[in-house]
């Protein structure tokens, strides 16, 4: 994996987007299905979990920028901004 920071940013945004879309139309006990794939571990808290990991990776990067790239951090920040927009009510 090239960039854990980028991956977790993508997971944060997609977890929030998927769960919002799914639980709008289905009961809160159901398992999320995306393109025929069952995602039994995905629930409303998953996005928060990924977000915490991504945030700690961003902080690690700010302490030691040699362990990542600023392009990845910039891309991760824009992805997390999308998550921020979707998550607001």
């Amino acid at each position, binding site marked *: 994996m090239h960039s854990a920071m980028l991956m977790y940013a993508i997971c944060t945004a997609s977890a929030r987007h998927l769960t919002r879309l799914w639980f709008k139309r289905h009961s809160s006990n159901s398992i999320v299905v995306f393109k025929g794939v069952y995602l039994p571990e995905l629930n409303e808290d998953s996005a928060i979990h990924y977000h915490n990991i991504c945030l700690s990776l961003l902080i690690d990067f*700010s302490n030691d920028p040699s362990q990542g790239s*600023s*392009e990845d951090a910039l891309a991760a920040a824009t992805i*997390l*901004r999308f998550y*921020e*927009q979707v998550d*607001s009510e």
Partner: protein
Amino acid sequence: MTPLELQYQKIIVTDFSCTLASLTGLDTETYQNVVQSVMHAQQSEALFTLESIEGPPDSGVTAGLRYSACLIALRQEIWSVLLYRRPFRLPVAANLDYSQLGPTEDFAWVNRILIWCADILRFCFGPETAVDIASTASGSAFERWDTLKAFEETWTSTSPPCFKPLYYFPADPTSRTYFPAIWLHNDAQIIGMQHLEVGRMLLSVYNPRRQRVGIGSRAMDKAIEHQLRQSILRICGMALPNKSFQGGMTGAAIGIAIGGEYFHDPGEQEAIIEFLNILDEEHAWPTKPVVDALQEAWRIQRVERAASVPQVPQGPASV
């Protein structure tokens, strides 16, 4: 630590509490602040110019990623400034000259329109950086507005042929079709044309020559409101034919957030709410704050209109 590292640490750690608040549903623009700080820490001059927007300076994966992330950040900043009406904070070059733009492909035109829209937002809601203030202090508001307006007028009279819609059908309120049908060629063109309409709306509202007092000012206000309504209907009309494209639908929602309260016709109001419901259904986008705010604004307008209607006196008619 380099200045960039310090910026990261300061912004991310001090904004951690804001991030927790964002989990409860408030948009604190935390990550917008992170992006802004990264850009300002890395650049002492303007980052977004009509030249730099043409493409990444060199080939390679990281250059492409940086370029794409910057474009997304520009659109997100435009989105935020329109919603929250605060100063534009990304480093866009001052005194951009739109008169020398040559022909190019439609994707590059869309990026130019985004810069133009950002330029208008900076004109309307203020600059943030010292570079911007120093550059614009000597120019007058009239000249800057004329330059921005000239780009829009040139586009209206001679837009590139590739932007001609595939299909167009005007709105027909008598058959409860309130939005025109505008089919554009690709998602980028939808983004571009929506931002062009937003730019038109802002230029008419923030026209420094607008007559604000005196006889005739009310007529001018009514004309501006009509322009806002027409732009919003067109923005929605571009998004609906391709409602699976989230960028177009959320772009239209921004247009509605800017001027939705100027719709008085109940049919149009219902169509707008229906549009926002479609956005919520298709993309799980949070539309409740806008829907609630619009319903309340329209309710207050109905009450005011009812109160201003003269009451017919009861009792025997006087001769």
